[in-house]
Structures are given as structure tokens and as C-alpha cells.
């Protein structure tokens, strides 16, 4: 494993305990304002539960953004229907579990592996199915087809009896309750003091650990893909399709790789989403979810792995905190002062302002893809193919 891969792994593992430590003084602190701009009482408390919600959403959208990045950032195909892959992954795992509940209760590890395989297989299949007819579409047309496809998928899962329609599939679980309790009792009580235990005990920690493991695997995989020759193939397709094709790269194979890989990662994200809420429901796979993932990418810089991780963490924390703050606002005649939907304005602003002022993302670091291009110039196979004088100034 290369050095920078290890950095990513360590970073991903360390960032959550670090954030817990940083935020610890704010847990269970209440902000009370008796007269909020003359409207009434404002009371907001940041609890451990909020933190876990933020953390799990951040993890899910790190995975989703990284998967979307393979298609948008690496290959240059704007996919507006990413949520379709997540829905397929989540639903196939959920349906499989619903059909084999006995197995999950008795052999949770086999069950988890099987349902993860299901999610990966079916989302990959759908990725292939979406990709094949759209190989020749470019730019905004590809975006619109994927958008329409995601809407069709949502209508299908909303209306089909086999998929439980608008009721959804309920009472899903990752590890059975006994395992969760056993881990919480025997493992976490070792190093949690009583305060923390009371705050964190009810959470299924082992599930979050499993999610974190999946996230780390995805981060490693995506980084590896970026540095491998498959990644270079995708970058070449993104930068100039005609030039890439004339160098012997098969456009259709490249796009199929990108779509299937991105769909598989999306399936994992959907699986995590379903397992976190233990509910598979059509309303959790709406167009906004694709936009969340896209926003994370745009904020961190399209094409950058680091950027996707940072963007997901920032946006998900902001979104969740804003929602809680907005619901804590004083109410007038039962209606909140500002509806909690107001937080989505932030996502719209992020997209507009980032495209206007910093199209390469907030990070002042070099874009990952640029770094790769520079490395190629000095060593590797490309030096054999330099034609004429190299134009360093551009």
C-alpha cells in the first residue's frame, strides 16, 4: 500500500474520535434564548444522538460522493440520478433480508456478507444497464437521461406491490439486537465513563464500526483506482474523448467501468442508508439525495477524493445542525417560524456560489487530478510519447 493510501486510512479512522473529543464540551449543553427576536422561546440542545446522526450521514454521503466522483470527476459524465443506484442497492439488500430473517438472526455475519453482495451485484447490474444505451450521450443529455431514470426507479419502487410500495420494508437490522447489546455492555463500558455511557449506550456502535470499515475500504479503493491505469484511462476520456480514442482507449469500456464501479459504490451507500434507518422506503431515495452527493463533490472539488470526504463532512454537519436549529425556533400558531426546509437553500447556494467563484472546490491544496498529471510528465510511460517541445508555460 502506498504511503498516501495509509494517510487516507489513518485520517478516516482518526477523524471521528477526534471530532468527538472536540465536540465533547458542547454535548448536552443547552442554548436558551427566552425572547428570540420577540417571537418566543428558543431552546436548542446538541446531544450525542445528534452527533451520531451527523456522523452516520457523513459516512453515508462520503461513500456516495466518492462513488459519484468516479463517474463525474474521473470520467466527466454528470450523473443526476445517482440515487437510483443507491435505491437498487438498498432495496435488494432489504428484500433479501426480509425473505431470510431466520438466517440473519442466527448467522449475522453470513447474512451481512450475503446482503452486501446482493446490493453490490444488483446495483452493478443496474449500472451496466443504464450505461449500455447511454454510452453515446454526452454532457447534459447524459445528465437528463440519468435524472429521468432515477425518477422512473423511484416511481417503480413506490408503486410495485412486490417492493411493498409506499409502505416500505420495515424492521431491518444489521447486527441482531443481542450482538449490539453484548458489544455495548462488554466493550464500550471498558473505556467509557458513566456520563458518556449514558449518552452513547443506546446507539448500535457495532453498526457504525462496520459502516466505518466499509467507508475506509471504499476510500482505499477509489484512491487506488485513481492512481491505477484504469483511472488514467478514465481521466483521458474526461479530458478529450476523441484524443483518448485515438490513443487506443475504448470509450465504451471506459464508460462501462466507470458506471459499474460508481453504481457498486452507490449500492453500498444505499445499503448503509437502509441499514442505518432500518427502513427501506421510496421517500428516502428522492432526487435531493443525488443533489446532496453532487453538492459534497462540488464543495470539495470535483475529481478530488479528499475533497469529497471533506465536503461530505462539512455539508452533512451543517445540514443536520441547521435542521435542528430551525426546528428549535419558536413556533407561531403551531407553524415554525422558518420551516426546516430552509436548510436546502444552503445546498442551492453552495452549488451556485462554488461554480461562480471556486469551480475547483474550497480546498487550497492542489487538485488531486492535477498532481497526477504533473507526476506523469516527469516519469512513467508518457515520457516516451512526448511530441516536440513540452509546453510548460500553459
Amino acid at each position, binding site marked *: 500500500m502506498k504511503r498516501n493510501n495509509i494517510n487516507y486510512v489513518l485520517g478516516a479512522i482518526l477523524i471521528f474520535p477526534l471530532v468527538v473529543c472536540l465536540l465533547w464540551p458542547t454535548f448536552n449543553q443547552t442554548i436558551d434564548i427566552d425572547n428570540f427576536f420577540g417571537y418566543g422561546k428558543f431552546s436548542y440542545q446538541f446531544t450525542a444522538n445528534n452527533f451520531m446522526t451527523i456522523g452516520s450521514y457523513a459516512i453515508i454521503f462520503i461513500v456516495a460522493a466518492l462513488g459519484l466522483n468516479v463517474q463525474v470527476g474521473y470520467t*466527466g459524465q*454528470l450523473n*443526476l440520478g445517482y440515487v437510483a443506484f443507491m435505491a437498487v442497492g438498498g432495496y435488494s439488500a432489504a428484500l433479501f433480508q426480509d425473505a431470510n430473517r431466520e438466517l440473519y438472526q442466527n448467522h449475522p455475519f453470513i447474512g451481512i456478507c450475503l446482503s452486501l453482495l446482493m446490493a453490490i451485484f444488483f446495483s452493478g447490474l443496474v449500472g451496466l444497464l443504464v450505461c449500455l*444505451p*447511454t454510452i*453515446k*450521450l*454526452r*454532457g*447534459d*443529455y447524459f*445528465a*437528463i*437521461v440519468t*435524472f*429521468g*431514470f432515477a*425518477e*422512473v426507479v423511484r*416511481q*417503480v419502487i*413506490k*408503486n410495485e*406491490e412486490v417492493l411493498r410500495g409506499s409502505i416500505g420494508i420495515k424492521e431491518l437490522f444489521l447486527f441482531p439486537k443481542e450482538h449490539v447489546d453484548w458489544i455495548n455492555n462488554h466493550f464500550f463500558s471498558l473505556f467509557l465513563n458513566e456520563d458518556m455511557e449514558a449518552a452513547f449506550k443506546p446507539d448500535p456502535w457495532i453498526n457504525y464500526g462496520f459502516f466505518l470499515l466499509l467507508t475506509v475500504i471504499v476510500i482505499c479503493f477509489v484512491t487506488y483506482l485513481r492512481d491505477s491505469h484504469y483511472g488514467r484511462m478514465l481521466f483521458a476520456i474526461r479530458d478529450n474523448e476523441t484524443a483518448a480514442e485515438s490513443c487506443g482507449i475504448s470509450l465504451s469500456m471506459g464508460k462501462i467501468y466507470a458506471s459499474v464501479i460508481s453504481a457498486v459504490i452507490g449500492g453500498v451507500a444505499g445499503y448503509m442508508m437502509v441499514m442505518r434507518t432500518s427502513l427501506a422506503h421510496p421517500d428516502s431515495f428522492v*432526487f435531493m439525495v443525488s*443533489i446532496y452527493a*453532487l453538492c459534497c463533490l*462540488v464543495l470539495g472539488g470535483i475529481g478530488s477524493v479528499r475533497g469529497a470526504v471533506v465536503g461530505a463532512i462539512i455539508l452533512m454537519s451543517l445540514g443536520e445542525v441547521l435542521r435542528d436549529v430551525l426546528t428549535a425556533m419558536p413556533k407561531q400558531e403551531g407553524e415554525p417560524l*422558518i*420551516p426546516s*426546509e*430552509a436548510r*436546502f*437553500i444552503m*445546498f*442551492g*447556494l*453552495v*452549488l*451556485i456560489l462554488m*461554480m*461562480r467563484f471556486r*469551480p475547483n472546490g474550497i480546498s487550497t491544496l492542489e487538485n488531486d487530478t492535477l498532481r497526477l498529471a504533473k507526476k506523469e510528465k516527469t516519469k512513467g510511460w508518457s515520457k516516451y510519447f512526448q511530441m516536440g517541445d513540452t509546453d510548460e508555460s500553459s
Partner: protein
Amino acid sequence: MSTFLDHLLNGLLLGGIFALIAVGYSLVYGIIKLINFAHGEVAMFGAFFAFFIFSMFDVDGDLKDHPWIYVLAMVVSIFVTMGLGWLLEFLAYRPLRKASRLSALITAIGASLLLQYLAAVIWSPSVVSFEAPEVFYYELFSVMDGDVLFEVKHLVVFMLVSFCLTLLWWVVEKTRMGKAMRACSQDADAAALMGININRVVAFTFIFGSAMAALSGVLYGLHLEQVRYNMGIQIGIVAFAAAVLGGIGSIPGAVLGGFVIGFTQAMASGYLSDLGDFIGHPLNSGYTEAVAFMIMILCLIVKPNGLLGKGDADRA
């Protein structure tokens, strides 16, 4: 037979409303090659402006039989929405005129979200009822022993739609500005070299498209008797499907596509369950929305240039 005529009439009504919005998509795409994702939201804002102005007058709730108040609300809303369309172009899209098409598309998505939830915050995040005037439902004539009613509503929508489309045809074909628009859609750089102010042409296109979208949004709101903050994306995407079906960039194509999609949706809402019986798999009315998307996807994959569009190497 009578239900078929009923669906046909409904389809024509919806088709006219969709055509007005689809034309806006096509106009903008023809000139700056941008899918204006926020166009549906502009229509939604038009409906909300009309609702707001109407409810300002209608304090006691007894103005339902005063159609002139509705006309006033509609006209004011059209003018305000024109301003909104110009603002959108000026603030969001103009700075990105030289940027890549994908970043302009992402900005358009952002603008769509922004407008949507702005409306949710300003007015309401739930359904707002916007009752149509009673004169809307007066019967003009009926066929098939009163089974199929031709109401004032249909007459109003058909008249307004045909007036707008004629006006659009006149502007594009007969005026100096229309000539400039056609020049820009052929080759923007060459048009600029000939002394055409591209920014003015684009701003005019946005303003004109927004006016038609506002009218269409008000009509759609009155047709459903409700306005909602997310109705923009629904109607916008259906209208976009119409524009794609007709060949995006082509104005007659957008009108044709609008009527085809409206007709198909009306038919789907009527006959989808029969089709389900026929193929032996239950299809409920929830699939009505999916029909427009299916048509759009098939059209983009099979015939990307649409019914009346011209060839473009970038699409396929």
C-alpha cells in the same frame, strides 16, 4: 367514448400548459446551449406571485366570483416573474457564459433548489389551495348528453396558449430582436461580430420565456386548484421531456412535444389500469408521472434530435 373525449380534452389542456413551458426551455437551449433547470421553478414562482396578489385583495374570502381580480393578479405576476427571470440570468448564468456547459448546468440545478426552497420559506412548505373563479367552470357546451363538458376553463387556456404562441412566432420571425435571436442560435460568435449584443438577446430570451412560464404556472395552479413549492420541478421536468421529444432548440418542436406529452399523460391517467389488466400486471395511476420520463429517455436514446430538431453531433 365519452371518457375518451374527456381525456382528450384534458390532454389538450395539459398539453397547452406544457407547451408554453417547453418553449422556454427550447428558446434558452437554442441560444446559449444551457438546460435551464430552474425554468419550472420560474413557472412555480409565477403561480405563487398570482396567488399572493390575489390573497392580498381577497382578505374576506369573497372574491371568487370576481374574475377581474384574477386577471389583474395574473398580469402583475407575469411582470414580476419577468423580473425574476432577468435576475436569474443576470446573477447566476451571465457570469458563467464562458465556463463549461456542465458548470452552467450545475448552477442551474443550484438555482432550481434555491428558488424551490425560497418559495417554501416565503409562502408555505405544504400545499396551498388556490381556488379558481367560479366562472372558470361555467359550461359552454356539452357533447355526448352532457358527459363531456367544454368549460370556460378550456376556452381560456386555449385562447391564452394560442395567443402566446402566435406572439412568440411573431417575435421570432418578424421583429429585429427575433432576427438577432435566430442569428445567435446559429452562431453566437459570428452574431456578436455582426454587432449583435448577445447579453441583451439572452436577457430578452429569459424574460420572454419567464413571462410564458408565469402564465403557464398560473394556469396550471388554477387547473389543479392548488400551488405547491415543488410543483415547479414536476411541471418543469415534464415540459423538458416535451422539449426534448420535439427536438430541443426547435420552437415548433417544443409545441408539438408539449401537446404529445400532455395527451399521453392524460391518456395514461385514464387507461393505465386497463393496460395493466391487458399485460397481466397491475399498473396503478402512480405510474402516470413515470410515463413522461420513459418517453423522454426513449427519445434521447433512440432519436436524440427529437421529432423536429436539427442534427447536432454533441447529442449522440
